Structures are given as C-alpha cells and as structure tokens.
C-alpha cells in the first residue's frame, strides 16, 4: 500500500473509532484570542450581566494571576499557553438566544441529531420517560427542551446566563458558595471566564418529573470551554441530572475547565451522572481534551444526599474529583466511578468526602480500567472531622489492566479526627484473563466484544447506578473506548 492510501485508510479508521469527531461548519462570533480584563468585560457584556457578576469575575481573574498551575496530579502535559486560546465562541445564529426550539439553527439541530441527542420534544417515544435537555455548544446554550412542562412544577431548568437575568437572587445567593472563586487554579480561571452551563432549581417538596440533562459540545478550534453548572435542591426535593460531552477530533489540545456546584438542603437529594466522552486524542497521543474539572456538592441539610456517578472514557487528560461536603446530620455522599484509559490517555480522578455532621455516611466505588500505554490514578480523600460522631465511610477501588504497558495507581488519603467514626478501604488489581477471553471466543464472541463484555461486568456496580435511559449508551461506550486494546 502506498503512503497516501494508507494515510486515507488510517483516517477512515480513526473516524470510525471516535464517531463524534466531526466539525460543524457554522459561523461563529468569537472574542479575540487571549486572556485579559478586556476579554472578561467582553464576555460579561455579551451576556448583559449585572455589575456584581462582572466584579466577581474580575476578582477571580486578579486572584488567578497570583496562582500556579497544580503539579501534584500524576499527569504529564506540556505547559498550556493561556494566551493562545479563544475564551468566547458562539454560533452567530444564537446571538440573542432562541426563544423556542423552532428558532434553533437547523445546522445545530442536525449536529445534535448526529450525536444522538433529542432536541425535538415531540419525538420522544411512547413509554420512554422524557428527558429534558440543555444543549451547550462551545460557549453558549443553544436550546433547552421541556422548559414549559418543568415550569408547571416550579422547576427552573435553563442556561445559567439566562438564570442570571431571570433569577438573579438565586444565582447571587448560591454561585461560588460551594466552589469559591479562589478555590483552585482551574476553578478560579473558570470563575473569571465561564460562558454558559446549566442552572437548575427544584422547589421545596418537588420531585422533578423528568431526567434533566446537559450535553456539552466543543466545536470551534482553539477554544476553551468553561461552563458552570449550579443545581439547587430545596428542602425535600429530588432530581436526577445527567451530563454528556463530545468534541471534534483535532490535533491540538483543548482545555475544558468546568465547575459544578450542587447545593442540597434538608431531606433533598441530587443524583448527578456524567458520561464523559470528550475526544481522547489519537492512538499516538496527539490531540484530545484536557478535562480539568471541579465538582463539589454541599449537603447542607439534614438527611440530604448526593450521588455522583461518572463514566469517564474520553479526554487526553482527566483531572477531577467530584466531592461531597457532608455538613447536615445524617447526610449521605456517594461516588460511583468508571474511568477507562486507552492509548496515551491519562486520568487522575477520585473523590473527596468531608464528614462534618453527625452520622454522616459515604460510599466510594471506583473502577479503573487501563489499556494501551495509558495511566490511571484513583486519588481520594476521606476526612472525618471532630463533630462527625458515628460517621462511616466505605471505599472500594478496583483496577483492571489490559496489556502490559499501562499503569494503575491508588492513592487513598484517610484523615480521622473522631474516634467513633469508621473508615473502611478495600482495593484490588486484576487483569483480564486469557482463560476468560478464550471462554468467550469459544462461544463465538469476538475478542473485542469479549473485552467489552468482561469490562462491563467489572463495572457493573457502577453502571447500574446510571439512569436507565443512559445505561445502554454507556455500555456501548465502554466497548468503543477499548477498541484495539487487545490482540
């Protein structure tokens, strides 16, 4: 085969591997490249923000300039040039934000259709539970479905930029209350330049009538995505929320530095699920998203509960630790995680459970799968504070290795300042057995399908925590992300 032909074949193959790798050709409204106060003013003006928010952004920016990028995660990447990126990119057609789904640019609708995300409310199949979707494209939210149906229950589900205008009192009260603007390098950067994201408020005593979800899509090149999500579950309310992410294939690395804040009051609960499938780079480690994300939940009320479930298959580098601050008595925090790395991907992920209140409990189930030349680290902190009388934690970390060139690491930190608190930790490392693969193949199952089956079995405890509507998709993703990992 000559070089040109094999090039083409390679390209076609890699397109099949990451089927979300296409680019939408759409006219974009971009801020000039680079980062400075003027850019922040530009973003704030574009969004017609109130003065207090602009000041908050500028305060964050000034603080960020004094900070240094963290070097403690077990990940390697060349220095990021923060001036070589665009911090605002919006499809032109959505300048003023669509009033209804009919106003959404057809090109965008088509993009989301290709991604398998329904933005047509009427197309929901009979018998399937509805899912309300907020679609964030580069820096802005382009559509939110089922807003009216939700409003009837008093549920607010909208882009955060819209919430700033329509519900300023809620945003002002809670924004930065869980992740302060000075929290860490990437969260602080996000506070300065965040562009959009979802806002959810569930009123007292309301069980949200449908799944809420946000799909994040990076499209423009050289653009960072900095979304900010804020969910407030008022007393006695319940909500299940899911986020999904994809990006085109590009040779450059793109930065995604998001912040998610959850606030849970008395007797309320939030189930937050993530299926993260950002472009992971190619099999030589070129390109891919840097996914540096801060997610934190404040269980402020008694008997409040947060359950984080994440299936992390994409990104060149993942750096995230969805955490729970268990402040209310009897509050519960859960973290269920599947992190898959293949080729040259690196993941440093885990959770922090901070037990402040009495009889608080937390449960951590982490499943790391490493293949190719990838590196996967579980990093977790369980902290029992002096007043956390009778609190408990259970942690289970399992690693599965595929091949000989990858690595799995477990770094659990435990800090107990209360004698009555109980902390349990279990960890295992295993390999996919040749005997398992042969057994499957003898039954007619191909090697790749066998790997997907065995890995899905390994992750079952986590996968079964995902909302039904997304479990099948996530299972398929496990198979796709491990393609080419054996043989």
């Amino acid at each position, binding site marked *: 085969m000559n070089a040109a032909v094999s090039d083409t074949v390679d390209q076609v193959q890699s397109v099949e591997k990451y089927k979300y790798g296409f680019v939408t050709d759409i006219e974009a409204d971009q801020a000039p490249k680079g980062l400075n106060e003027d850019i922040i003013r530009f973003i704030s003006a574009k969004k017609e923000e109130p003065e207090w928010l602009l000041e908050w952004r500028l305060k964050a920016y000034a603080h960020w300039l004094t900070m240094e990028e963290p070097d403690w995660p077990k990940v390697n990447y060349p220095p990021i040039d923060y001036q070589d990126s665009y911090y605002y990119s919006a499809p032109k057609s959505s300048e003023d934000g669509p009033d209804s789904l009919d106003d959404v640019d057809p090109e965008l609708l088509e993009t989301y259709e290709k991604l398998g995300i329904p933005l047509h409310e009427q197309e929901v199949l009979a018998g399937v539970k509805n899912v309300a979707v907020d679609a964030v494209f580069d820096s802005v939210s382009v559509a939110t479905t089922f807003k009216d149906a939700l409003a009837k229950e008093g549920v607010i589900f909208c882009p955060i930029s819209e919430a700033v205008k329509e519900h300023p009192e809620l945003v002002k009260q809670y924004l930065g209350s869980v992740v302060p603007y000075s929290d860490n390098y990437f969260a602080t950067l996000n506070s300065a330049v965040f562009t959009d994201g979802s806002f959810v408020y569930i009123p007292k005593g309301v069980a949200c009538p449908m799944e809420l979800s946000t799909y994040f899509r990076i499209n423009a090149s050289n653009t960072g995505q900095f979304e900010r999500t804020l969910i407030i579950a008022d007393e006695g309310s319940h909500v299940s929320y899911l986020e999904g992410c994809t990006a085109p294939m590009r040779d450059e690395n793109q930065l995604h530095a998001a912040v998610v804040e959850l606030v849970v009051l008395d007797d309320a609960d939030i189930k937050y699920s993530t299926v993260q499938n950002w472009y992971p780079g190619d099999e030589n480690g070129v390109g891919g998203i840097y996914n540096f994300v801060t997610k934190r939940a404040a269980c402020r009320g008694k008997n409040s509960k947060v359950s984080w479930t994440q299936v992390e298959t994409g990104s060149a580098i993942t750096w995230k630790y969805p955490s729970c601050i268990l402040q209310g008595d009897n509050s519960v925090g859960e973290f269920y995680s599947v992190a898959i790395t293949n080729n040259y991907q690196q993941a440093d992920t885990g959770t922090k459970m901070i037990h402040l209140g009495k009889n608080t409990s937390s449960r951590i189930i982490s499943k790391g799968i490493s293949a190719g030349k990838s590196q996967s680290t579980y990093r977790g902190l369980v902290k029992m504070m002096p007043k956390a009388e009778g609190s408990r934690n259970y942690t289970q970390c399992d690693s599965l290795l595929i091949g000989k060139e990858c690595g799995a690491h477990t770094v659990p930190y435990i800090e107990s300042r209360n004698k009555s608190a109980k902390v349990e930790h279990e960890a295992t490392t295993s390999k996919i057995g040749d005997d398992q693969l042969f057994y499957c193949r*003898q*039954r*007619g199952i191909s090697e790749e399908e066998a790997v997907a089956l065995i890995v*899905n*079995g390994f992750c079952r405890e986590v996968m079964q925590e995902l909302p039904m509507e997304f479990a099948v998709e996530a299972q398929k993703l496990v198979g796709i992300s491990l393609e080419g990992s054996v043989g």
Partner: protein
Amino acid sequence: MLEIKNLHAKVGDTEILKGLDLTIEAGKVHAIMGPNGAGKSTLSYVLSGRDGYEVTEGSVLYKGKNLLEMEPEVRAGEGVFLAFQYPVEIPGVSTMNFLKAAVNSVRKYRGESEFDAMDFLKFVREQTKILNIDDDMLKRAVNVGFSGGEKKRAEVLQMAVLSPAFAVLDETDSGLDVDALRIVGEGVTALRSPERSMLVITHYQRLLDYIVPDVVHVLADGKIVDTGDKNLAIELEKNGYANYVEAAA
C-alpha cells in the same frame, strides 16, 4: 464430519499429542477415555483453537475445511462447541447476557437473524426446563459461585442454545452426584441428532450409561491406543488403564 490425521501438538516445549488419528462421522457419538495427563484436554483445546497449543504436524478437517487455521470464534460459528472441564468465571456478567451475546454472535455468523430480548428469554426458558435448571441461575454471574454440578449443567445449557454441529464434552461428569449425572446425561442425549457429532471425554464409564457411545477410544500418551464399542468402556472400568500406560511407555 471430523477427520484428524497424525496430529502432533505441544504445549510450551513439551509434546503432548504424538500422532493422533480420529475420524468421526456425522451423527455419531465417540467417547475418549484415558488416564490423567494423557492429553485429553489438550486435544479439546487444539480442536477449539486455544492460544499456546501449537500444532507441529498433522491435519484436522472439519466439514471438509481446515479447522486449524480458523480463529476460535470462527470455529464456534462453524458449529464447534467445547464444554470445558473447568468452566471460567466472568464476574458481573449475568449468565443470561452471556448466553445472549454468544447466541447472537453465532447466529450472525451463520447469517441468521439475531434474537431480541423477549424472544431470547422464551427460547432459553424452553432449554432450562429440559435441563431442570432453575431460571434463577440466568441472573447470576457466569459460573461465579456455581457448585460443580451447576457449572456442568450451565455448560450443557450453553451447548443446547448454541446448537453446535460438533461438540466436545471434557469430563462433563466430574464433580456430579448421581442425580446431577443423570440429568446432564439425559440432557446431552436429548441433543443427539443425525446432524450432530459428539466427542465425550471422560475418565469413568458411568457417564456412558446415560450417553451411550457409538465408538469408544482409549487415549494414552498422546495417541489413540485402542478402539472398540461401548463394551470397551466396561472392560476399562474393570481393568483400569495400567496395561495401556505400560504399553505406551
């Protein structure tokens, strides 16, 4: 159906099969008996294509095709089935899901339509009833926490749903009590048909009371050293393998 000629195979540096000849006609059930370490399981792995079992000489024709050059999953698609002596555990994968993945894979290979979940459930339930298997087993992870008898019954269930043309049963009787032996034996016998050949590997004669073989072979030191009808198995039970082992050595 199957024609093995002068088969030599090694594991690592050790030659285990040393010139084995065996022909099985369609619809026939052959039994292979032999002392421990004779190479019975090795033969089953060579026929199913396991890595690490290297054929150094000889040939295997299956339905007129060269079996040895096919990948394991292709052999399965072509109708080769192995009931393992030691079935493998797959944690977290329900037996039902595993069966469905397997059946749909071979159906796809054979150009048949894949089952949807409902049809498949019905199809499997018919088989579990025949084999006296509690449907609860379908929800449990593949072989995880199964008793010896459950593992062997699950193997026969897999054979039933995959509908092979040629099945090798490697010591499917080991670890079974008398009742389980009868159920498994009758289950296998129910699967006999003019289109289906079987190679039943066993150490003891008792399984052959339920699965009555057309031909019995003795395997010792990597070769077939004797062939007869079902009475040969009864003789072996009486006299043991000592004569063969001495002769082969």
